[in-house]
Each structure stands twice: as structure tokens, then as C-alpha cells.
């Protein structure tokens, strides 16, 4: 068997309550994770598209990668795929992912992934204990929050487990580990389009509403625990690679330039130092805490606290709810979001929108949109609890809010107005505006030409924008533009890929076309198929080496080839990423995607930028600049899209993939289906 793979993918049909397998070998050409997931989605339901996300035909695909269960640094994430009910105006075939140890346990149990089809008639959960898989009744669990669900399922899976002891799953199957459980909360049970999946106390698959898809299938949870081997093709090379990688890590005992990179501020998130992802333990007196890592992550951006709250939550998982004057209740407010299973990256803009509507006198008791929600008490725990409970249980106005931002705005008749003027700050497919598309254009284009917010900070966002924003960049604008793009194989050597000016080599240029293509290809293969964390990879530069060079592009194939036994180059794998992106784009095309849909709301084009620190090539000189006041030119964006489609092998008139492009990628059957639908490019 090839290294890295267990050889089989679990296939569960909840309608017929049958359990089967898919041979991984059939899909190995797609790498793993996202690539295999997309291929399975196409094979199983591609010809039935379009249909709705809550249709039982929709799939939940949770794929591991060849790296899952190994010590490949920063590869502990689980890719979730299916049609996403959060997305708008079409519930695109989409992806979300979460960290922790779920895919590791799945691999140890002997599975490369899970495909869930159909819908149960009564609530169920899936129990995976090595090769024994059962569909269990969720009686007594359905209705629980995500934390209680995981603890109760752990008890049911391993009733004899005592923390700190060995337990025997079956004869000769011993472990000290507890089951890894992923579940939906009340929000998902009630088919909220904001429903997230939770694993552990704070690891969310936040985007796309897959918690709601779990709920639509009456699937409460999936639990995995295993004691088996993950085979490694070249163990010596893999060990050598892991030790080689230490040079790129934060040296906890003797960090490089500790005063500069170890302080609070932007470097807390981007320097690779432990913890720093939880923003709720920064004020004195500090709560005793540890840095808590996902499986195999050398950074450990999360925390577990002596108070037990805010455990393993990071970034938006600690930032959506603010209770004025109380860090304690702020932590617990965010934890409540995790318990309800509400997607943080949708709840955040929704809360802002409610506040805006209230201030405008539109929303409130006795107002045009009548509600009892205590909108006059923002910043209190009571307010946060009331809003989240209403959404999770679809109480009162919560029934509309549970439809997520875009559809709520549509329901109250304000979508066009509020989205286009930015009152409701959505930017791409119903997901929130994240980084200014007028300046950090690749984030905007990468999202628009995808299906949701890009959410890949290790592209030029952390390394360049955040470094510049810190006020103390460790590379000059010229140095970083060269070093960063040196790593962008196969397009290396073009520093203008990170020119964020609006000049001839800037955000509308052919160089930017290449950067966006690179991002999509890296996203699909290394992040998606490799299970990489978007906070760790790619690593084009780093503050942790003397010459500031990062591990990309040497590390990725070094590890992949050692694990799998393949012998390909970084560029080869990037072309696989191109293939996976093209397959995804084909599925979106079957769902109705056309280039005319790939446009931002008006405010993204028209509202002058407030400024956003980035590298810019202005008047023949590299510099960090903000681009304050810039607007996005519609015609130039359209021209950019045209060149992007051509670059990727798609028809610029409609954005559809072309036959020769697909056939070169061994995707002829995809071309055939597109042709029968009249959508071949």
C-alpha cells in the first residue's frame, strides 16, 4: 500500500442505514483531502446538480490527507465538503475545515475519509472504532450543546476510559486517547445556515453552514478512535525532514529577536510563537494557561486556561462576543457560541448588522422589524445570550436570523440596499468582507473566484500586510517582494505578484493573475488535499530564520514524497492543485456559476479605501503604503477576470472550463457532463 493512506474511505448512507467503503486508490490521483472529496462529490452526485443543500442528496465529505495522523507540521486539519447552505445566492459546493485531532484518529482507525449520504429518519451519530463502524441512535444526545455532546459520546464509546489510563478498544487494541468527536449544536439541529461543526471546545468548521447540513441529515455527530498504523513510505527521510523543519519553528527557549517578535501585537499572531491565537488572555493578571496545539502542530496557537473557558478557541472564536468590562464573561460568551454551534465568521457580521439596523430605528421593539431582543443592551452577556439562543433555536426573529446574513437581509427586503452600501458587510458569496479587496486584491479575487471567504492568512496577508502593519517590518518592501515571490514556484522570479499598487504592475496586472492562480492552486492541493493549516502554510518567508527564507517550496514535496513514496516536484503538485480547482469550478458551473456572477457588491468598488498596509511599487520604488482613498475599477476587474480565465484554461466569455483543459487533466468525463448541460467553455 502507498504510504500515508490507509486504503479505504468510509461510505455511510443514512437513508438506507448502510455502511460501505470506497477504495482510496481509485482517487489517489487527487492527492487527498479536498482533491479526493471533490472527485467523490462529482462522481456520486455531479450529474444530479443542481439541488439544494438540505436535500438528502447533498453529501458531507470529511477527508483526511496522507499527512493526517503523522507529525507533518501543521497538517492536522479536517476538510469538510458538500453544498454550503450559508452561501448566497447559490449554495455552492464548498469547503470548510477545522483543526484538532479528528483526522488523526480517523486515520488511526483505518480510514482516509468519510462520505455521508442521505438523511436519517431519527437522530443518529456515527461511531467509528477502528474498522467497526455503527450508526447509533442519538436519543438522549439530540438537543445537547456541542460540549455535552462530545463528552456524552466519549462516555458511550469508551465507558471504561479513565483519563490517564490505558483502555482496550478490543483485544490487542489499546490506547490512552479519548474519542475524537465532531458534532453540530442546537443551531445545526435546527438547520441554521449559520450552523458550524465543533470538535473539542473551540475548533470550528465555521464557514458554509455544514452544521445545518448535519442537522438536515439528522446526524448529530461522528466519533472516531483508532489504534492502527499510518504507513510511511520512507520513515528515515520523513524523520530527517521533521528534524530539518525545526529551523523554521519558533525556538521556545531561545527565540530569534525575542524582544521584537515575542511581544504583544501583530507578531503575536504571525511570528510562529506558541499561543497568541486566543486574544482573551492578554490583560494582567493573566490567567494561567498552556499553549495547546492541534495534532502535530509545532506552534500551538491555542490555549487551555486554568479557568477552563476559552479553551482551544482562537481568533474569531474569541472575538465575536464582547461583554463590556469582563474578560471572564467575554470568554464565556464566546464559549456559548461554540456550544450552540454557531459559525463565528457569520455571527460577527450579523451582530454588526443588527446593531446597524437598530441604530437606524428599523429593528427593535415596536419597530418596522419587531423583536423583543434586548438591542438596547449590547455589550452585555444577556444580550449575547438572547441573540444566540434565538438563532440557535429559531425563536422569534431568530427564525429569520438563522437563515444567515444574506437571506435574512433578503427576507426583510433590504439585501440590495444594505449589501451594496456596506451596511451589511458581505463581500463574496454571502460571507463577510475580510481584507480590503481594493488593496489586498488577491484575497478579494481569490474569494470571488472561489466560493467563500478565502481565509488563507499565510498568503501575503500575515507575512506582508501584518508585518507591515506591525510598524516594525523585518524586511523592507523590496526585500519581501523578492523573497516572498522567490518561493512561488512555478511563477517565481516575478516580484510584482505582490505589488499592491494600482499601477501597471499592480493589482490588475498579469503578475496578479499569476498570484491569484498560485493561491488557488496552493489552496486546493497543499491546504486542501494536504490538510494544511492556513495559519502555518505556505511559509514563503519567516522571522525564524537568519536569512528570512521560509520552508516553502522545499518543505512540501520533501514531506509529501517521504510519506507517500511519490517522487514529484512542488510544481507538479501545484498543477494538481490547478486540476482540483478546475474540477471545483466545473461543479460550480453545473450549479449555475457564470462569470457575470463573479462581482463584488457595489461598496467594495465604490467606497474609498481607509488604507491597508501592503507592498507597493510606486514611482519606480518598492515601499510599504496604504492606498488610502483608492477605489476598485469595475472595468479593470473585469479585464483581470478575462485574463485569469484564459490563464487557467477557461472560456473568458463565461468562465466555464474548456474541454482541452479538462482532458489534459484527465477530466474528460467532466467535460462530457458539462457539454450535455451546454456549459462547456
Amino acid at each position, binding site marked *: 500500500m502507498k504510504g500515508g493512506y490507509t486504503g479505504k474511505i468510509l461510505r455511510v448512507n443514512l437513508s438506507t442505514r448502510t455502511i460501505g467503503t470506497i477504495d482510496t486508490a481509485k482517487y489517489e490521483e487527487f492527492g487527498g483531502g479536498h482533491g479526493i472529496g471533490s472527485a467523490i462529490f462529482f462522481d456520486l452526485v455531479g450529474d444530479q446538480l443542481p439541488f439544494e443543500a438540505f436535500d438528502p442528496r447533498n453529501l458531507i465529505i470529511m477527508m483526511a490527507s496522507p499527512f493526517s495522523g503523522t507529525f507533518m507540521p501543521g497538517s492536522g486539519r479536517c476538510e469538510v465538503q458538500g453544498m454550503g447552505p450559508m452561501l448566497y445566492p447559490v449554495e455552492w459546493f464548498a469547503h470548510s475545515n477545522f483543526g484538532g485531532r479528528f483526522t488523526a484518529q480517523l486515520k488511526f482507525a483505518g480510514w482516509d475519509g468519510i462520505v455521508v449520504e442521505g438523511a436519517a429518519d431519527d437522530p443518529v451519530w456515527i461511531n467509528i472504532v477502528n474498522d467497526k463502524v455503527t450508526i447509533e441512535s442519538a436519543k438522549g444526545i439530540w438537543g445537547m450543546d456541542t460540549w455535552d455532546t462530545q463528552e456524552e459520546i466519549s462516555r458511550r464509546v469508551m465507558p471504561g476510559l479513565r483519563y490517564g489510563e490505558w483502555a482496550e478498544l478490543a483485544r*490487542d487494541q489499546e490506547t490512552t486517547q479519548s474519542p475524537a468527536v465532531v458534532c453540530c449544536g442546537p443551531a445545526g439541529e435546527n438547520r441554521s445556515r449559520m450552523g458550524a461543526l465543533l470538535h473539542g471546545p473551540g475548533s470550528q468548521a465555521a464557514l458554509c453552514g455544514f452544521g445545518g447540513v448535519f442537522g438536515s441529515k439528522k446526524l448529530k455527530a461522528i466519533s472516531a478512535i483508532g489504534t492502527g498504523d499510518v504507513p510511511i513510505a520512507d520513515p528515515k527521510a520523513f524523520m530527517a525532514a521533521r528534524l530539518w523543519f525545526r529551523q523554521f519553528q519558533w525556538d521556545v527557549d531561545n527565540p530569534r529577536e525575542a524582544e521584537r517578535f515575542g511581544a*504583544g501585537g501583530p507578531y503575536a499572531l504571525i511570528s510562529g510563537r*506558541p499561543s497568541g491565537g486566543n486574544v482573551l488572555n492578554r*490583560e494582567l493578571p493573566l490567567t494561567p494557561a498552556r499553549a495547546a496545539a492541534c495534532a502535530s502542530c509545532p506552534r500551538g496557537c491555542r490555549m487551555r486556561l486554568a479557568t477552563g473557558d476559552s479553551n482551544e478557541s482562537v481568533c474569531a472564536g474569541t472575538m465575536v462576543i464582547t461583554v463590556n468590562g469582563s474578560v471572564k464573561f467575554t470568554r464565556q460568551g464566546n464559549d456559548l457560541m461554540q456550544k450552540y454551534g454557531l459559525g463565528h465568521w457569520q455571527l460577527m457580521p450579523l451582530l454588526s448588522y443588527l446593531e446597524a439596523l437598530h441604530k437606524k430605528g428599523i429593528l427593535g421593539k415596536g419597530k418596522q422589524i419587531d423583536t423583543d431582543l434586548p438591542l438596547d443592551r449590547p455589550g452585555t452577556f444577556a444580550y449575547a445570550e438572547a441573540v444566540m439562543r434565538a438563532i440557535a433555536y429559531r425563536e422569534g426573529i431568530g427564525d429569520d436570523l438563522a437563515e444567515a446574513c444574506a437571506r435574512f437581509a433578503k427576507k426583510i427586503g433590504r439585501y440590495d440596499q444594505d449589501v451594496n452600501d456596506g451596511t451589511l458587510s458581505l463581500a463574496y458569496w454571502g460571507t463577510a468582507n475580510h481584507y480590503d479587496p481594493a488593496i489586498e486584491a488577491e484575497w478579494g479575487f481569490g474569494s470571488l473566484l472561489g466560493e467563500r471567504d478565502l481565509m488563507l492568512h499565510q498568503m501575503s496577508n500575515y507575512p506582508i500586510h501584518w508585518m507591515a502593519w506591525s510598524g516594525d517590518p523585518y524586511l523592507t518592501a523590496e526585500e519581501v517582494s523578492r523573497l516572498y515571490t522567490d518561493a512561488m514556484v512555478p511563477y517565481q522570479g516575478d516580484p510584482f505578484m505582490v505589488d499592491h499598487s494600482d499601477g501597471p504592475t499592480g493589482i490588475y496586472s498579469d503578475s496578479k493573475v499569476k498570484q491569484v492562480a498560485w493561491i488557488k492552486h496552493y489552496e486546493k492541493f497543499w491546504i486542501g488535499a494536504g490538510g494544511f493549516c492556513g495559519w502555518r502554510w505556505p511559509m514563503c518567508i519567516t522571522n525564524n530564520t537568519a536569512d528570512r527564507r521560509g520552508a516553502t517550496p522545499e518543505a512540501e514535496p520533501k514531506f509529501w514524497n517521504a510519506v507517500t513514496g511519490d517522487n514529484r516536484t512542488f510544481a507538479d503538485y501545484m498543477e494538481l492543485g490547478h486540476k482540483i480547482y478546475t474540477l471545483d469550478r466545473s461543479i460550480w458551473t453545473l450549479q449555475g456559476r457564470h462569470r457575470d456572477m463573479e462581482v463584488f457588491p457595489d461598496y467594495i468598488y465604490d467606497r474609498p479605501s481607509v488604507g491597508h498596509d501592503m507592498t507597493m511599487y510606486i514611482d519606480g520604488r518598492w515601499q*510599504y503604503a496604504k492606498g488610502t482613498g483608492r477605489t476598485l475599477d469595475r472595468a479593470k476587474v473585469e479585464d483581470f477576470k478575462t485574463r485569469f480565465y484564459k490563464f487557467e484554461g477557461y472560456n473568458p466569455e463565461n468562465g466555464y472550463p474548456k474541454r482541452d483543459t479538462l482532458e489534459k487533466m484527465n477530466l474528460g468525463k467532466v467535460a462530457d457532463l458539462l457539454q450535455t448541460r451546454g456549459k462547456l467553455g
Partner: protein
Amino acid sequence: MADDKKALNREAAPKKRLSRRDFLVTGGAVVAVDALVAVTPAAAAAVPAAAPAAATYPASKGYLVYDSRKCAGCTTCMLSCSLVHYGVQNLSRARIQIMQDSFGKFPGDVIMAPCRQCKVPVCVQSCPVGAAYVDTENGNVRRIDSAKCIGCKTCLKMCPQQPHRTVWVMIDGKGKSSKCDLCLDTPYWDEKGGPGGKQACVESCPMKAIRFVAEMPDQKETEGYDVNLRNDHWYNLGLVDNSTIEPKRNPVWKVGGGE
């Protein structure tokens, strides 16, 4: 800052619940052997008529100490151990075990459990066939010869630690005991191991939460092994184990404002 640190001797380690096993070894002698016969039939048949009493063993010339407050729970050490010894990645094969409770409270949310290379190696003492032994040619490391192991599990049951530090693994389809050999025998890693050499867990731990020491740690419970391996750089990240500690670099969020 961090005045409470006591390198290699932390007083605040979580206390392990005392169990019957904890009283099995006192003064260098195994005083209870009834558990020895309450194992598998193979073990019962192989049990010597009288268990050796008050045997003495040369001290190991190497030990692993660790800092359970520094551990981030990434399990890299476990997977490194599994890889260098077996060529695969498998937490259940790891001779160091890390357990964690994601919903728990620091510091009790992590338990680190490497072999202690005990002064009185009960695994060696109790093995009915001599598969567990003191390797006098290699720094007196306590080892298990899997070729000799009959799979009776006596060493698993007699290990005085919770969880037991002897590990049950499948080798060529047969269940065997294994244990930490300080990386003396690593078919999948071309490094010299054992005392004076390198250990995969020590080398790979990104938090530097495991350290090799030559001096025998205090044998009392966990304190001697679960030590403080943090320095000021750690506390300055805001990762304190005491709310009175004020890091030199206050981790309050500050933004410079760009160039």
C-alpha cells in the same frame, strides 16, 4: 519574575491519586506479588516459584524528564517514537504517552507519561522469562527484548505507574510488550541513541518539553520527573502558571501603525 521556578524540581506538579500499585514498590523490593499470578495463563505457567526479592540493579545512566506545563499536546514526540522504532505513525505504539482533556483546566489537562527508567525496574524484576532486562552494555537502560517476550503482560500489570509505561504492541501479528529504550534501537533513524546519544522525542518536541538527563531524578511520585523546563522566554509569551507573574513583555495588544 517567575521567582517560583525551581529548575528540575517543581513543587506544583499535579498530584497523582495514590493507588494500590503505588505501594507495591518500597525500599527497592517488590512486596506484593499476588498481582503477578492474576494475569494470563501463559504468565501463570511461567511465573517462577518465588519472585526475586530485594534485587538490586545498576542505575540507568539516562532518564527523560519533562515539563507537563510546557507540553502543547501536539503528540509529535509520540509519533517520532513510533516512527523511529517501527517505521509507522501510531500513537498506540509510542513509548511515551501524552494524554489530554480538551475540556479540562490547566495544568491538569495534560498528562505526560514517559518511562522513568526506574531505580527498581519492576518490569525487569517481574518478567518471568527475562525478556525485560537491564542493558549493562548500554548505560543500564531498562529494555525489553521483543524476541523473548511471550506476551504475558506481566510487566504491564506490574508497572507501578499510571498509565503503565510498558506498551502493548503488535509485532508480526503477535502481542508483545515494549518500552522506552532511550532510542538505543531505532531501525528507522540513523542516530546514536541511549545515554550519550539522541532521543527522538527530545529532538522532535517543538516545545522542548522533554529533556535527557544523566542524573537519576527523585523517585518520589511525579515531582522528580515532571520538572520546570521553562525560562523567561516562555513566561514572556504570557503563558504563566501563576497569576502573580507579570511577564517582562506585557502581552497587551499594540499596533505600530505601519511604515
